[in-house]
């Protein structure tokens, strides 16, 4: 399984940023099992790329192929299936249900296409140190805690690609390592790929490739 980027170019990007980029306007292939680090400065379109891959935005030229099918031709139902089975994500802005409890936030994702049992949620929460937050409202958790909730949520489904958009920005060194370990384990079980986009290379993420955006 692979994702191919063919001459993908956001419609809004400045000329000088394209020349430096290893991704924009190039042909790039991401394979399952790979660990890919995308390094980019602010404003170079990192979040846009992640959103293009997840199918949230379509304001680009060129094409993105998943399993040789252009995702720009997917309809709403096909995207729903794509997001249930093939691709998972940790958003930079997290996108949690603020008025629901942490457990509800995790369960709503898990029930959609369960990969783990409910007890696994508690185990993961414990591993990342938020086990006592499960029954608290999400909006009462700190940003760092919310980041860990978003990470655990992304691991509740089957996937071939895990998209991470600055997933550790509010975590300390210790928590970053724990979270990274958990994600690498889960990805390995699924023989999936991690595509991690961040401002600079993260040393404890053993990337197979580092691409500068």
């Amino acid at each position, binding site marked *: 399984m692979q994702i191919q980027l063919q001459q993908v170019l956001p419609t809004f990007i400045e000329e000088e940023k394209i020349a430096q980029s290893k991704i924009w306007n190039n042909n790039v292939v991401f394979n399952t099992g790979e660990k890919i680090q995308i390094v980019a400065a602010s404003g170079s379109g990192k979040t846009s790329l992640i959103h293009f891959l997840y199918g949230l935005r379509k304001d680009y030229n060129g094409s993105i192929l998943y399993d040789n099918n252009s995702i720009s031709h997917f309809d709403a139902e096909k995207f729903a299936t794509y997001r249930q089975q093939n691709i998972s994500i940790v958003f930079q802005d997290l996108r949690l249900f603020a008025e629901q409890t942490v457990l509800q936030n995790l*369960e709503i994702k898990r029930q959609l296409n369960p990969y783990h049992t409910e007890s696994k949620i508690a185990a993961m929460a414990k591993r990342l140190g938020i086990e006592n937050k499960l029954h608290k409202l999400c909006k009462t958790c700190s940003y760092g805690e919310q980041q860990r909730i978003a990470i655990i949520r992304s691991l509740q489904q089957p996937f071939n690609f895990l998209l991470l958009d600055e997933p550790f920005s509010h975590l300390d060194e210790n928590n970053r390592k724990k979270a990274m370990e958990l994600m690498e384990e889960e990805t390995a079980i699924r023989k999936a790929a991690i595509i991690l986009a961040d401002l600079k290379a993260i040393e404890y993420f053993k990337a197979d490739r580092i691409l500068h955006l």
Partner: protein
Amino acid sequence: MLSFKHIAPFLNTGQNKVSRWFSYIGLGIGVLLLLCSVQMYININQLLKERNPKKTGFDFISVTKIITDENMARDNRFTPDNLKEIQSQLFIDDAAPLIANQFRVKASAGNIIPFSTDLFLESINEKFIDTVPPNFTWQEGQTDVPIIFSSDFLEMYNVFAPSQDLPQLSQNTISSVKIMLECYGPAGVQTFRGQIVAISDRINSILVPDNFMQMANKNFGGVTVVPASRIYLRTKDANNPELLSFLQQKNYHVNKDKTKFGRIKQILQAIVSGLAGFGVLVILLAMVLFSFYLQLMIARSKENLQLLLTLGYSPHWLSKTVAKKWIPVYVVVVITAVLLTALLHWGFQYFVMKGREELSPFIHWIVLAIAIALLALSVAVNFRLVKKLLYKL
């Protein structure tokens, strides 16, 4: 298995209780009005249709043109085109003209009853006569003419006979009376012997066989084509509102008593149709109100719904699941309306109609079919609406 219960906490379904309840009640009232109207429509049809079971299954009615001050100087008989037009109407099974004599006829009863009078004769297609004995035939050269006499005329005769010192006659004795028919033509008078061979309850006239009338009109009146001043209609239902509107529109006169129920039916059906129309309007308003509630609920839950879609929830599944939540409500509303209709109909049949047999105490199957159709419609409209709103997010 995912169900509404899982996503319920993410939707603001509890909002706007008042408008939601108004729409439920509105829907109930609308459905009740519509179902009751349909049931009443059926009741009216059943009550006013076959009042007198007809042996032949047909009603026969005599139609004339209305004579008014304006048209009395003109010929108000039916032209062949008029007849064709009448025959072509779907609600008229058949129509035949009554042809009158175009010459002077004088009748006398000979020596037994000292009575003589100028008379009129008519003829009509035999199919339209209720009592046609086998001897109601006439051949060229025959001096005996069979006559079918109206029972009303017999009754009238028996009313004035005693005052004129004439004997009263029964239906049996009248057939033994020989009537001398004197026909006046350009070549003089010719006398025929008339014999009453049958009494007709249906046609108010003195009928002779068709071919006798043709011959007589030609020989004594000098005419071959005679326009009809009366036309007899044969119809499945003399109270059919369509027939009545046609006759009214053409300015044709018809026996009011025969079509009285038709007139009542016309008015009642108009009232009931109006009520049904009002019911449909109320249903539409209730649906609009409910759609406002749905729009508001979805607008208030917009962010959550968007996030559910982002997480991979299928818009089709979401709309199906959200829409399904209201199916039980619709079922309860429609079943309540059906039960109330059944109760009202039963009350009408039992208390107003005193349990008359023409009406079944149960509601008609059409009413049930309409209820089911309305239920299906509500569910379909609701599903489409939710889907449209969700796809717009």
